[in-house]
C-alpha cells in the first residue's frame, strides 16, 4: 500500500514562502508526476514527502498514518536522486544491499534480493565494480536497484534522468514506466520536462510558484487546461496566445491555439503572416510565422510541407479548439 495525502502543507525557508498551501491526494499504485518550471517548488514538495525537509505547517499522511514528524528512515519510502547519490566507497552489490543491511535482514536473503534486482536491471556483470567505473545510465540503474530491493511503499524520483543524454533518457523513461507496470507501486516523479510528464504519468500535478495549478490526467491537462499557465506549459511546441481585439471577438481576454490546431494555406485564411524559421524534423515541420499584428505563431504541419524563410502563409485556427481565458488567466 502506498497512498499519500498532503493536507494544507506549507513550507517556508525563513521569510521566503516556497509552498503556500498544498493539498493533494495520491492514490495507491498511481504514477504521479510533479512538473513545473525551475523554482516552482516541485523538488521541495518531494523532499517534504520524503522527510528530508520539515513542513512549516500542514500534515503528510502515508496510508492514512500521520508521518509529518517521522524521520525519512522511518517512512518506508525510497528515493532516486538526480545525482544518483551512490555510495562511492561501496561496490554496486553493497550499494544495492545497503538499505537491506540497515533493515537488519539476514545475509542469505540480502544476497537473493540483490541478485534478483541485478538481473531485473541488467547489472549482473557489474556487481563488484565501484560506482565510478560505471556509465551514467548504469549508475542510475544501480540507484533504482537500491530503491526497489527494499520494497518501499512508494518511490520518489527527483529528476532522475536530467544527467543522461537524450537517447538514454528515452530508454530509461520506458524502463521506469515498465517498472511501474511490473511493481504497481506508487511513484512520484519530479521533472521539468513536460514530455516526460505526459508520457509517464497517470496523473500530473502542474506546479507554479508553489501552487498546484492543475492536477489531472495528461490528456485532461492537454484538452482542458484549467488556466493559461497550464495551457502554455503542457504541449510541445507551446500554445500560441493572442490578446486584444482578436480575443475579444471570442468574448475572452486572451485566446490560445495549439500549433497543431491551425489550418495552413498559401492563398487564404484568417491570419496572414510570413515564415521566419522552418524547423524540419522529418515527421513534422514547425513553422515560426510572424503574423500581421498578432505576433509570432508556432505552427505544426506535416513533414512533407516545404516552406522556407519569407514565404507568405495564412493561418486559420480550428474553431472548435480555441482555448479562451479571462483576465485572470482562468479558462472560460
Amino acid at each position: 500500500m502506498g497512498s499519500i495525502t498532503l493536507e494544507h502543507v506549507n513550507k517556508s525557508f525563513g521569510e521566503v514562502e516556497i509552498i503556500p498551501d498544498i493539498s493533494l491526494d495520491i492514490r495507491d499504485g498511481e504514477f504521479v508526476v510533479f512538473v513545473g518550471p525551475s523554482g516552482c517548488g516541485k523538488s521541495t514538495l518531494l523532499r517534504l514527502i520524503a522527510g528530508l525537509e520539515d513542513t512549516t505547517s500542514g500534515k503528510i499522511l502515508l496510508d492514512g498514518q500521520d508521518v509529518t514528524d517521522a524521520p525519512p528512515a522511518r517512512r518506508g519510502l525510497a528515493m532516486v536522486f538526480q545525482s544518483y547519490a551512490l555510495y562511492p566507497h561501496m561496490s554496486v552489490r553493497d550499494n544495492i544491499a545497503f538499505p537491506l543491511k540497515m533493515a537488519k535482514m539476514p545475509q542469505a536473503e540480502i544476497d537473493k534480493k540483490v541478485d534478483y534486482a541485478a538481473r531485473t536491471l541488467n547489472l549482473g556483470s557489474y556487481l563488484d565494480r565501484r560506482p565510478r567505473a560505471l556509465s551514467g545510465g548504469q549508475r542510475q540503474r544501480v540507484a533504482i536497484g537500491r530503491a526497489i530491493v527494499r520494497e518501499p511503499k512508494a518511490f520518489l524520483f527527483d529528476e532522475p534522468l536530467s544527467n543522461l543524454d537524450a537517447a538514454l533518457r528515452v530508454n530509461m523513461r520506458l524502463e521506469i514506466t515498465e517498472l511501474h507496470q511490473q511493481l504497481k507501486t506508487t511513484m512520484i516523479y519530479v521533472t521539468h520536462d513536460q514530455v516526460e510528464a505526459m508520457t509517464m504519468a497517470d496523473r500530473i500535478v502542474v506546479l507554479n510558484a508553489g501552487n498546484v495549478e492543475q492536477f489531472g490526467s495528461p490528456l485532461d491537462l492537454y484538452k482542458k487546461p484549467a488556466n493559461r499557465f497550464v495551457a502554455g506549459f503542457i504541449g510541445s511546441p507551446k500554445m500560441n496566445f493572442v490578446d486584444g481585439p482578436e480575443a475579444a471577438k471570442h468574448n475572452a481576454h486572451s485566446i490560445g491555439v495549439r500549433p497543431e490546431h491551425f489550418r495552413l494555406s498559401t492563398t487564404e485564411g484568417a491570419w496572414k503572416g510570413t515564415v521566419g524559421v522552418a524547423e524540419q524534423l522529418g515527421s513534422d515541420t514547425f513553422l515560426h510565422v510572424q503574423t500581421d499584428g498578432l505576433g509570432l505563431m508556432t505552427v505544426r504541419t506535416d513533414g512533407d510541407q516545404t516552406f522556407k524563410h519569407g514565404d507568405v502563409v495564412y493561418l486559420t485556427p480550428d474553431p472548435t479548439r480555441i482555448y479562451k481565458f479571462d483576465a485572470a488567466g482562468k479558462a472560460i
Partner: protein
Amino acid sequence: MARRVSTSTKIGFTVLAWVIALLLFSPILWTLVTAFKTEAEAIASPPTFLPETFTLDNFSAVQARSDYFKHAFNSVIVSVGSTLLGLIIAIPAAWSMAFAPSKRTKDILMWMLSTKMMPAVGVLIPIYLIFRDLRLLDTLHGLTLIMTLINLPIIIWMLYTYFKEIPVDILEAARMDGAELWNEITHVLVPMAVPGIASTLLLNVILAWNEAFWTITLTSGRAGTLTAFISSFSSPQGLFLAKLSAASLLAIAPILLLGWFSQKQLVRGLTFGAVK
C-alpha cells in the same frame, strides 16, 4: 600550448629550493651531528661539522639520568589519546556544522578559531588552579584532556572543511535507505572522509607531540612527555650541549619518522578540496 620553462630557470629554482630546504633543516642537522660529539667538542671554537671522536656516550648518559622510555610512552599516550578523544568529539560536531548548519554556525566556527589566537599564558592561572583543585596536575589523563581541548578547534575546522566537500545527496540517500544518524555517520560519512580524517589525525598527533607550554607547566616527574624531557636537560646544571642534542634527537625521532612516512597523506590531506 604548454608553457616552456628554460633550463636555466629550472636550475635556478632547483638550487633555490635546495638552499631553503637545507636552511630549514640545518638546526635538525646540527642537533644530529652534535649528539655524537663529546661535550668538549660540542662547544669547541671554531666548531667542527662532523664529530672528530664519534661517541654514543651522550645517549646512555641521557637514559641513565632521565627515563627516556617513560617520557616517550607518556608522549604516545597523550598525543594518540588526545587525538582519538578529539576525533570522537569533532566528527559529530563537524557533521552538524557541515550538514545541519544553523544561523550561528559561522560564528561558532570563528569563535573556536579565535581561541587559538589567544596566548596560552593568558589562561595559565585559571587552568592551573582548576587542574590543582581537580587533582589533574601531573597526570596523564589531565594532560590528555588539555591537549584535546587546545587542539579541538583545529580538528573540528579541518573535518568541517572535508565534510563540506561531501555531497549532501549521498547522506540523504542513506537517510532514505533507512540509516539512522549513527549509521549515516559510521557507514557513509566516515568511510568517505577517510583521507581527511587520516590527515587530521596525523597533524594532530604531531601538534600534540610537540606541544611544550602546557606539558612543562602542568607536569613534573610522573606525567612528563618528551618535551618536558628535553627541557629538563636545558638549564640547571649548566649547558651540556651534546647531551641536550642527544635528548632532543631522541625526542623528535619518532614524530620525524611518522611525518616522513606519512608525508604524502599529510600533503594530500592539507590541500584536499583546495582544487576541485
